[in-house]
């Protein structure tokens, strides 16, 4: 691996990310899967970094899942998106930050389509007016929220209490970065670092002290693939994809995986459990899995937030070995306690995958 070669590509794919004043839209599914992630993003931006991030409770889905599952036509998706933009315009913002990778891809695709086919944009404006009596301005800047964290990665590193370094050995942690497919594979120039060697998460890992692992199936999809998972008959494809990725990263002995997509951490996490139960195979040390975290969770950890406040107990793969390596203190007793310290009860434990 020639690091300078990658740096050359990274320098070619830099995107402009404004410093402040963002209109923020959430992901449909992340709040359920990893509930602290979006909360953490807002907290880091607002409280830690002191940025202006606006959120509107009237925003809806972007229609991306339905679009990628072939259940709605693109024009419908475009009208939904147009309404989101209208909400942003109404709130007086022009920088649009999406929490979801598929949304980000969806917005990018729609903006590019409108750029190529302005008549379509006109049509969508008409449709939006007919349906909602709303008008919109296209965002001046579109970013994924990981772009923002990437932009502020060094400020976060300065304020960090922990680094992605093995406390015992002093060695940097071996970190796998997994980028959601819709981040830059469709429009390489819209992502930090392009499509082949994206830098958005690698930059965070480097700034926070870890070592990025480049393994052969790095580019491969997490396995979610919309239809592959949602149609049960296809589910083994979804699982096989994930399996392929883990087989490929296994020799590198990763300490953790960072992702920037709603689906990826979920599937990389949950399919480890399914692989363990069906094949008896685990990828972490001592029967554990490899912890899969969102970039906000990792940012929260290095900034010193309590792991259980970050919702790490909602991951199937136990994060405890990772926390021990970094040296983050946690109270095992509190793992399954709610914010009010009420017992949430313990989940049934898997047979083959060790969770704590």
């Amino acid at each position: 691996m020639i690091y300078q070669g990658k740096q050359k590509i990274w320098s070619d794919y830099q995107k402009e990310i404004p410093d402040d004043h963002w209109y923020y839209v959430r992901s449909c599914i992340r709040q359920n899967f990893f509930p602290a992630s979006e909360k953490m993003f807002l907290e880091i931006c607002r409280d830690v970094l002191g940025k202006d991030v606006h959120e509107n409770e009237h925003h809806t889905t972007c229609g991306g899942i339905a679009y990628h599952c072939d259940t709605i036509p693109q024009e419908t998706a475009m009208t939904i998106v147009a309404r989101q933009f209208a909400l942003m315009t109404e709130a007086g913002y022009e920088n649009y930050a999406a929490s979801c990778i598929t949304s980000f891809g969806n917005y990018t695709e729609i903006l590019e389509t409108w750029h190529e086919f302005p008549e379509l944009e006109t049509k969508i404006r008409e449709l939006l007016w007919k349906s909602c009596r709303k008008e919109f301005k296209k965002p001046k800047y579109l970013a994924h929220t990981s772009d923002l964290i990437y932009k502020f990665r060094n400020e976060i590193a300065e304020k960090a209490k922990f680094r992605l370094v093995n406390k015992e050995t002093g060695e940097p942690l071996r970190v796998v970065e997994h980028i959601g497919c819709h981040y830059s594979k469709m429009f390489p120039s819209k992502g930090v670092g392009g499509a082949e060697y994206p830098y958005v998460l690698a930059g965070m890992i480097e700034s926070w002290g870890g070592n990025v692992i480049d393994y052969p199936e790095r580019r491969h999809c997490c396995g979610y693939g919309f239809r592959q998972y949602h149609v049960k008959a296809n589910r083994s494809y979804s699982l096989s994809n994930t399996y392929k990725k883990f087989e490929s990263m296994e020799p590198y002995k990763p300490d953790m995986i960072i992702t920037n997509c709603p689906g990826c951490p979920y599937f990389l996490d949950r399919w480890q459990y399914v692989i363990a139960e069906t094949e008896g195979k685990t990828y972490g040390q001592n029967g554990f899995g490899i912890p899969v975290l969102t970039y906000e969770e990792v940012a929260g950890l290095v900034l010193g937030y309590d792991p259980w406040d970050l919702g790490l107990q909602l991951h199937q793969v136990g994060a405890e070995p990772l926390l021990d390596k970094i040296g983050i203190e946690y109270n095992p007793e509190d793992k399954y306690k709610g914010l009010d310290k009420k017992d949430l009860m313990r989940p049934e434990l898997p047979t083959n995958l060790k969770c704590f």
Partner: protein
Amino acid sequence: MNIFGFRISPSSAINLDNVDKERFRELCRIEPDAVRCMACGSCSATCPAAGFSGMSVRKVLLYLQRGKEEEAFKLMSNCMLCGKCTMVCPRGINTRHLILSICRIYDKEEKK
């Protein structure tokens, strides 16, 4: 254990790293022309068994080189050795003898 109603599906992909090349090499020692195939498909197009078992000498050769022996055997199962493929091959490959040699070298049981 199929406790979820689905599990890892076997890969149909070709992994050249895992292909056992020895038997094909043995075949090439007998039929050095086998590798001269340029995949024009004349053999498949003219084959009377193509309509029955999908026979195609081109595909058989390819599958054997890609470690997909079972698929090759399936194609070959209705070969009648009529020799039309030999007649039409633009590279002059002796396909009839090639097929007989495959039948001698390769074994269904050997493959797990």
